[in-house]
């Protein structure tokens, strides 16, 4: 199983979404995002914004990073104001 976390305001768009998914071969953060497209278009739109950060087990990774079983995958929206 992969634990999913939509941090901050991304959580507002993930209402009703399961907090875990099955681990499959070749899974990446980009594949997880794309798999949400049918049921959660607004969430996928937010995840497609520039500067979204992805962490895997508290490590910042790229969209094409392989995900292993048991990992925690977190999506973090951009924070740019000052």
């Amino acid at each position, binding site marked *: 199983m992969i634990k999913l976390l939509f*941090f*901050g*305001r991304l959580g507002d768009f993930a209402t009703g979404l399961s907090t875990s998914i099955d681990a499959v071969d070749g899974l990446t953060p980009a594949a997880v995002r794309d798999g949400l497209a049918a049921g959660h278009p607004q969430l996928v739109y937010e995840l497609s914004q*520039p*500067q979204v950060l992805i962490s895997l087990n*508290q*490590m*910042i990774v790229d969209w094409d990073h392989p995900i292993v079983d048991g990992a925690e995958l*977190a999506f973090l929206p951009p924070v740019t104001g*000052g």
Partner: protein
Amino acid sequence: MSLTDRQFIRYSRHLLMDDIGQQGQEKLLNAHVLIVGLGGLGCPVSLYLTAAGIGHISICDGDTVDVSNLQRQVLYQTEDCGHLKVDCAKAVLSGLNPELDITTYPEMISTQTLSQDYSIVIDCTDNLAARHMLNEYCQRQGIGFVTGSAIGWEGQLIGFDFARHSKLCLNCIIDRDSAEPLTNCANAGVVGPVLGTIGSLQATMAMRMLLGFFDSHGEVLRYDGKDARWLNLRSLAKSQCAVCSGQKL
């Protein structure tokens, strides 16, 4: 440099601490910190570092105070509207600690502003281009860089101790060629105390660097004030980074 009698009283709560003490206070008094941006982050950063006794503080911002700033930019008063932020800030900061040197740059950050000799640069701006200009400058100069940002209920803080680490910089975490997100404080809003939280942490991080305690180079700290939740995320240097890899790309 030795402390005066007045400084012993002013900084007594630092001097009581074993890991600051007189030696640490002298490090703070000998430091020169550049604060870029005097908005919601720059206000608490400059107030705390002035109170802490950073000997020379440079502040850079080309904006004037607007009434819409007053919900979160705690340096300014209603009668300051229309006046340059750096001038209003200098008046408050000088009143708080008259013994410090405060240099003002009433302009947006540029390579000319960055020609001075800084101990640390603190990014309190609101745009990616400025952040990356500061990141590249600090990495090249081998000095500390503290970058903060906030929007809505959320904040982010990252520190880079380039005096001790040349690899892993902001460009490894957020690509400098990224577009600006459509969502920003001007169209989505921001909670004042969230800026205060992140700004206070930026000031704390700067003091940690100046005192030699900082050991979380490139760690990303995220805060969600709505859910009272924190995340500490590690990051890695990118081997092909155009800024810190040492490769000509």
